[in-house]
């Protein structure tokens, strides 16, 4: 059963889909922020603060932070380009929402089942760099400008290994449709045994590693957080933003982490499918989102673990890593995948 079967007209369908996307992204960002930023980081760094507010395990911390951000004065610098300055956070968050559109949570639980889903998701993901550049330029601040230029150089450099890492999956699945990719993994066989399906991480483990590294850079999380670099650029392109606009960047950061984790889970870990249940069954429309959520949390755990462990690279070292290592490795990976695809 899909929304189209309900016969409620395109207007209502669109409204329902919009509400889902608009609700799920901030919710995902909050879940990641709460689980990893507050709880996991506090345990890893023996922090006491985030364990205190609200009594039980610091449950009130995130809500308190939200209230704090809403109370803050909305400051726009005198020299800023006001319209661009106001629009920039929205553009950054927009790309996150657009990426989420193609992410399937079940056989029919998807906003738009595009034939070129992978291509679309990776294409709109680079929209955020426009927002970052707008923010940096409009702030009329040297730190912001340096940060945004760093961000632009970094996002462009890592877009390439990100796309090349995914190409291996696309070759193996033979489709760019995310629904098709999940079905390929659910119906796949490991040496003729189809009990567990064949998640692409088993064959595309190089691709998975490359995807995770490049996604980390796209999210500008440590060890690739030069654009924000709080110890040198004092938060880079976000330096002039306050209150709710800053919160937008924050939601954008964690929301994008949520979507990238979802993309990695879909491409490499079999998306909404679980072993022993037919992935195309109607029941998966209800179970699938939960399954996908668990996989997203697994992938996000890896992302945030690296974030809290590593120091940051320098800008030139970051470029060298992308162009000298990641891109050649991903090219070799594509070549090997293609050869094996033809051979078997």
């Amino acid at each position, binding site marked *: 059963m899909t929304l189209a079967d309900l016969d409620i007209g395109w207007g209502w369908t669109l409204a329902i889909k919009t509400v889902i996307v608009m609700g799920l992204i901030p919710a995902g960002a909050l879940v990641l922020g709460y689980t990893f930023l507050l709880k996991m980081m506090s345990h*890893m*760094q*023996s*922090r006491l603060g985030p364990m205190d507010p609200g009594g039980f395990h610091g449950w009130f911390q995130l809500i308190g932070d939200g209230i704090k951000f809403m109370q803050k004065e909305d400051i726009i610098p005198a020299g800023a380009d006001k319209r661009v300055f106001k629009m920039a956070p929205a553009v950054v968050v927009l790309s996150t929402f657009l990426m989420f559109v193609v992410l399937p949570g079940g056989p029919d639980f998807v906003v738009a089942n595009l034939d070129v889903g992978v291509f679309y998701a990776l294409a709109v993901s680079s929209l955020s760099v426009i927002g970052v550049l707008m923010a940096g330029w409009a702030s009329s601040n*040297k*730190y912001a400008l*340096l940060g945004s230029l760093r961000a632009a150089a970094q996002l462009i450099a890592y877009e390439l290994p990100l796309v090349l890492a995914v190409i291996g999956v696309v070759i193996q699945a033979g489709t760019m449709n995310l629904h098709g990719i999940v079905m390929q993994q659910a119906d796949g066989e490991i040496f003729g045994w189809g009990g567990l399906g064949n998640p692409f991480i088993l064959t595309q483990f190089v691709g998975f590693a490359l995807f995770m590294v490049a996604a980390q850079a796209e999210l500008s999380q*440590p*060890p690739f*957080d*030069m654009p924000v*670099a*709080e*110890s*040198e*650029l*004092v938060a880079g392109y976000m330096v002039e933003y306050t209150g709710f606009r800053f919160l937008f960047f924050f939601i954008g950061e964690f929301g994008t982490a949520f979507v990238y984790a979802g993309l990695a889970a879909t491409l490499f870990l079999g998306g909404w499918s679980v072993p022993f249940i037919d992935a195309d069954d109607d029941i998966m429309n209800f179970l699938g989102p939960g399954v996908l959520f668990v996989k997203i949390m697994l992938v996000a755990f890896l992302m945030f673990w690296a974030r*809290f*462990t*590593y*120091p*940051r*690279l*320098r*800008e*030139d*070292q970051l470029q060298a890593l992308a162009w000298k290592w990641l891109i050649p490795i991903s090219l070799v990976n594509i070549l090997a995948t293609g050869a094996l695809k033809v051979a078997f």
Partner: protein
Amino acid sequence: MTLGTRPAGFDVDPSLYRHLADAQVNVELDTGDMILNLGPQHPATHGTLRLVVRLDGERVVASDVVIGYMHRGYEKLTEFRTYPQITTLINRIDWLSSFANEVPFIHAAEQLMGVEAPPRALYIRTVLTELSRIATFVLFLGEMGLQVGAITPAFYGFRDREYVLNAIEAATGGRFHPNFNRIGGILTDLPWGWIAETRESMRKILKSCDDFEDLVVANPIFQQRTRSIGIIPAELGAAYGVSGSNLRASGVDWDLRRDGKPYLAYNDLDWKVWTHPDGDSFARYWVRLQETRESARMVLQLLDNLPAGPVMAKVPRIIKVPEGEVWVNTENPLGEMGYYVVSKGATGPFRVKIRTASLSNVSIAPWLLRGVYVPDVITVLASLYFILGDIDK
């Protein structure tokens, strides 16, 4: 002893280092490249240091260090205080290792008066000096991680410093500013149970030094960020007056605790001066890590051999220091610290010259920062490890 005591064999011709002379940037007139103002309020300068850098893209063309935002005039203030009052003031010069600041001044006063502290007092002074060294260095070990972008070590650093600060507070009553030294000894004896607790804390410090070794030193990204960045040549470093761990990281085997005029109980101890041949930011981190360990071992040794007896020598109630001049320099956590005290026989000094380590250490920064990238500015400054109070006095 003269003011400029330097290790032998370091006579340098400044003209060999060409940009020594033109290190000053005329920031008001130049408009060619982008001028970035780091500070006086900037997270990397931990205090109010202002750094004006001229950038070509991300590369530093020239830089100028502007100091004096925290000048408190301590040298002048000491002329209007009595000797016991001055220790309160000089506590605040390098606020991370306050106890170590008191030691050379008290020594100077004791030498002028001809008083000698009893051995137990000297041992306790040594323990507390080494504790403040550990407190300063574990903070550095974490702080450096933060400056290269890893937040986790910073929290470990603060956690470990807490063990040491608790010990200092238990013994002296003050966490940051003990003001525990008296001319002729120390205020009181150690509290009951302190020795066992401090032993336990030192074991924790030794263990977390291993953690820092695994988490930071062994990290490939940290090595990439710090190796061969900000190299101080040994001769040039000595010529600039760089001292302490910064100079030892350039391969100079020179430590006033061993090579200076004997003071405190260092000659009774079995310990080692650590050096590193490279002179880069990584070497400075590595040397400080080893020195933290060495200090923890020294404290354990001192606590094992603590002599019995009084902690205060016989001194008159009203302290009047006879006429004379004396120069006392010691190895403080940040480097060589010295006091030149001139007395005219009154209850307070006639003139005090304070030689602080950070001022000389940071004076080499414009030379070091030539041609590095903006992120390296931060690592180089962090690895020099200065305290603003120690620069501006």
